């Protein structure tokens, strides 16, 4: 009997030791990695303390990344990090990343080679879906799921159905992964993929860099998706070989797999896209913005757009130019390795000469933590992933989501704009 599966379903079946799974089925899957950060791990540690089963399932398959409020912004965040540091020490957690080694978790883990194709990964952070770019199943959970995962190495899942996004064509110069995913969220809405997988396919993918794919998979959650996933191609294999010594396994969707919906997106037709407040689905293409939208701040960074490609694009726009007087431009390389490379390539010099500030890796302003909080009435163009009410500060401030190219050009002009 022919029982076709999607790419996600195949990975879940393998990890549940089942020959076949179908949408809606409840399964228990073995995990290759359990992730937490400095906000979610302290809560998970408290839950673990309540468990009869003591200890962790595998000290090598847990990643604890201090990234949200670190270097610590206040006493409470310092105490939270201290509790995680002590837990990591007590359980000899191999992949514990603190100041000096840390980076923004979803940029750091692929770079460290901890995530590869075919893995099943949970993380107590909603943007854990990022690793789908490598052909892994990975999804965000809460602290209690993380605690159960750290203790047992397993998690329960409802097998998702899927939406297929067939990407065709070649994107034009200033179109990045951010424009692709904002276009998709604008099209299907912030709950358009609720409970479901977003499976990307098509020959347009070969024109998307790994960094573009990470950005796209990263924001699957902003459409409500359980995960976003890309097929494994030569570029993926090259990336994994450069970063990881772990064995990977390539899964692909069956030709006759069933999808709830299918969309075809011609990448050559996309225009730079901006999400207006206060939902990522409120998108406009740059040419649809008729009245100038003046900005007070530009943020370039985050787990969505703090990678090397993003910084290179921002630098290509900012080179020889000045950030508009009255605009604060904050650039945050996502990891220490990216920071170092940006220094070696001269990108940091370009940023500083343009009048931008460059920060150590942190999630900081993305979630209104610190390093760029907005006052009432202020506007920010940001390469981050959410523009909810109060996301970056005061409830009367506004966040506009865009690509690094648009954020950098807007910083120079003082209003939302795109390089020609």
């Amino acid at each position, binding site marked *: 009997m022919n029982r076709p599966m999607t790419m996600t379903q195949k990975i879940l079946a393998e990890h549940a030791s089942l020959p076949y799974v179908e949408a809606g089925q409840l399964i228990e899957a073995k995990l290759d990695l359990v992730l937490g950060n400095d906000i979610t791990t302290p*809560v998970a540690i408290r839950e673990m303390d309540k468990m009869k089963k003591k200890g962790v399932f595998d000290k090598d398959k847990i990643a604890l990344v201090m990234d949200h*409020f670190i270097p610590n912004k206040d006493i*409470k965040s310092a105490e939270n990090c201290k509790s995680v540091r002590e837990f990591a020490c007590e359980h000899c957690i191999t992949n514990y990343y603190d100041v000096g080694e840390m980076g923004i978790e979803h940029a750091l883990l692929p770079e460290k080679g901890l995530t590869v194709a075919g893995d099943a990964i949970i993380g107590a952070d909603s943007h*854990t879906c990022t690793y789908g770019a490598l052909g892994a199943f990975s999804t*965000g959970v809460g602290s209690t799921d993380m605690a159960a995962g750290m*203790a047992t190495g397993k998690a329960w899942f409802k097998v998702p159905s899927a939406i297929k996004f067939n990407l065709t064509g070649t994107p034009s110069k200033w179109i990045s992964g951010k424009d692709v995913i904002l276009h998709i969220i604008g099209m299907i809405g912030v709950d358009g993929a*609720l409970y479901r997988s977003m499976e990307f396919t098509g020959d347009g993918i070969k024109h998307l860099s790994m960094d573009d794919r990470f950005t796209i998979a990263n924001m699957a959650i902003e459409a409500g998706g359980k995960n976003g996933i890309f097929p494994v191609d030569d570029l993926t294999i090259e990336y994994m070989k450069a970063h990881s010594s772990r064995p990977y396994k390539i899964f692909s969707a069956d030709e006759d797999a069933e999808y709830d919906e299918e969309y075809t997106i011609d990448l050559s037709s996309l225009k730079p896209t901006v999400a207006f407040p206060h939902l990522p689905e409120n998108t406009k293409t740059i040419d649809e913005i008729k009245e100038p939208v003046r900005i007070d701040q530009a943020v370039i960074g985050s787990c969505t757009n703090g990678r090397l490609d993003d910084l290179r694009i921002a630098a290509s726009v900012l080179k020889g130019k000045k950030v508009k007087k009255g605009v604060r431009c904050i650039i945050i390389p996502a990891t220490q390795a990216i920071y170092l490379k940006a220094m070696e390539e001269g990108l940091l010099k370009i940023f500083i000469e343009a009048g931008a500030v460059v920060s150590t890796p942190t999630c900081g302003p993305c979630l209104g*933590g610190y390093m760029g909080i907005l006052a009432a009435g202020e506007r920010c163009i940001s390469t981050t992933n959410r523009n909810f009410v109060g996301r970056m500060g005061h409830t009367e401030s506004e966040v506009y989501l865009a690509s690094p190219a648009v954020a950098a050009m807007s910083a120079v002009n003082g209003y939302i704009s795109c390089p020609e």
Partner: protein
Amino acid sequence: MNAKGTAYKYGDNVDTDVIIPARYLAIQDKDELAGHCMEDIDKDFVKKINKGDILVAGKNFGCGSSREHAPLVIKVSGISCVIAETFARIFFRNAINIGLPIIECPEASENIEDGNEVEVDFDKGIIYNLTKKEEYKGQPFPEFMQKIIKAEGLVNYINEES
């Protein structure tokens, strides 16, 4: 198991940033955290609700972050149940895992009005609107999730199973 109280109604896409803003996420004390529940969408929320009251919302309730602080502050603030047209998936998992009763019911979400007296029978999956004398059939949970809810959370469930 039943819940009964006054309904407080909100719209679509109530996100975790307005349920509990990130500026409070370093707080570990549950009661202190719960003092900021729904602060950025309704400043008076904590003052106006009484223990047992019911939160009603539209689609995609709890979208955004994976912070378990969101269902936790709703539970600790005294809300006995959240009824929504749909829940964002991480919030849905987190609510079950920490033992906050939730129920998906588009009909209830549409017809319950702010201030209505509402009772929820979780075993039958039925929502009674005592003010409007209406009843709505909610989506029952699969057996596995009912076990977690009855154990009042995933940790207790795992402890019982082991």
